[in-house]
């Protein structure tokens, strides 16, 4: 069991223990496949060392999507790398490989521009501009079917509009920056695969 600490619980905090157990059960029911790495990442994210479950309220502390992103990230670390199917995009390009190559180049440029802009907007805590930068890149991410990056950007926009927590947004941007090289590699592989076929 990941969530139970070995601390002694005396009579005075029996009520606290019951609450903690209830929250643990709630957490595990909601995310049955959450692994240790992901759990640790959540703790890291909230800088809540110690018994985080005392404070844990799933709906308010962390959106389920965040956990799925983290979960996906943890699972990817274990085995697979990002995979992208460019055949649908090529269909939209009417089979023109040169156009597809151009779109990939523009896409990579847009991602790099977003990463740079995000860094600046995070530093100045300009969430409106960060939201706008995320909005601008979203259509391209959807168009190129890079779902992992799209999920992160949707969360960034949500974070900019709702809680405006700099730590949370920094974390999400870090996720984007870490995911991008994998996506870029996957795009290159998918393009080579199409060229060979």
């Amino acid at each position, binding site marked *: 069991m990941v969530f139970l600490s070995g601390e002694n619980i005396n009579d005075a905090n029996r009520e606290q223990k019951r609450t903690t157990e209830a929250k643990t059960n709630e957490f595990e029911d909601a995310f049955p496949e959450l692994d240790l790495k992901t759990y640790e990442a959540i703790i890291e994210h909230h800088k809540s060392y110690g018994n985080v479950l005392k404070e844990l309220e799933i709906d308010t502390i962390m959106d389920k999507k965040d956990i799925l992103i983290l979960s996906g990230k943890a699972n990817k670390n274990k085995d697979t790398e990002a995979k992208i199917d460019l055949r649908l995009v090529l269909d939209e390009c009417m089979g023109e490989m040169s156009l597809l190559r151009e779109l990939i180049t*523009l896409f990579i440029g847009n991602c790099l521009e977003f990463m740079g802009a995000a860094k600046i907007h995070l530093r100045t805590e300009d969430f409106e501009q960060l939201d706008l930068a995320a909005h601008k890149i*979203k*259509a391209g991410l959807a*168009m190129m079917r890079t779902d992992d990056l799209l999920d992160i950007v949707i969360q960034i926009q949500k974070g900019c509009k709702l809680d405006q927590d700099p730590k949370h947004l920094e974390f999400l941007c870090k996720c984007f920056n870490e995911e991008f090289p994998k996506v870029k590699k996957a795009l290159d592989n998918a393009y080579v695969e199409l060229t060979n076929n």
Partner: protein
Amino acid sequence: MTKKRLLLAEDDELLASLLNFRLKKGGYEVNHSANGKEVKEYLSQNMPDIIVSDIMMPYFSGMELIAYVRKELNSQVPIIIISSAGNEENVLNAFELGANDFISKPVSPSELLVRVARELKKI
């Protein structure tokens, strides 16, 4: 047969490249502008047969474009708006200002071609 002239106002280069290509393949003479200033300059001298415009554009938004075309230029040229998903309020405002149709991002080029042809048929 002369080609129908289409003004594509879209600041997202990625989307614009794809749409430009598909619209040209679809038989249209496409003029692409990436910002509102260019759009305004173009419209002050030329009137296309149809306009396809993103709502969020630098310098001159899609909303301003619709108002400019309908009120200042007094033109009823068909205008199709490209909007982001979940931006229903903007779409409603666009219709109130005089937009003829809208299409949500991510834009399917085939769907846009159908919508463009449908609007041109109405003229």
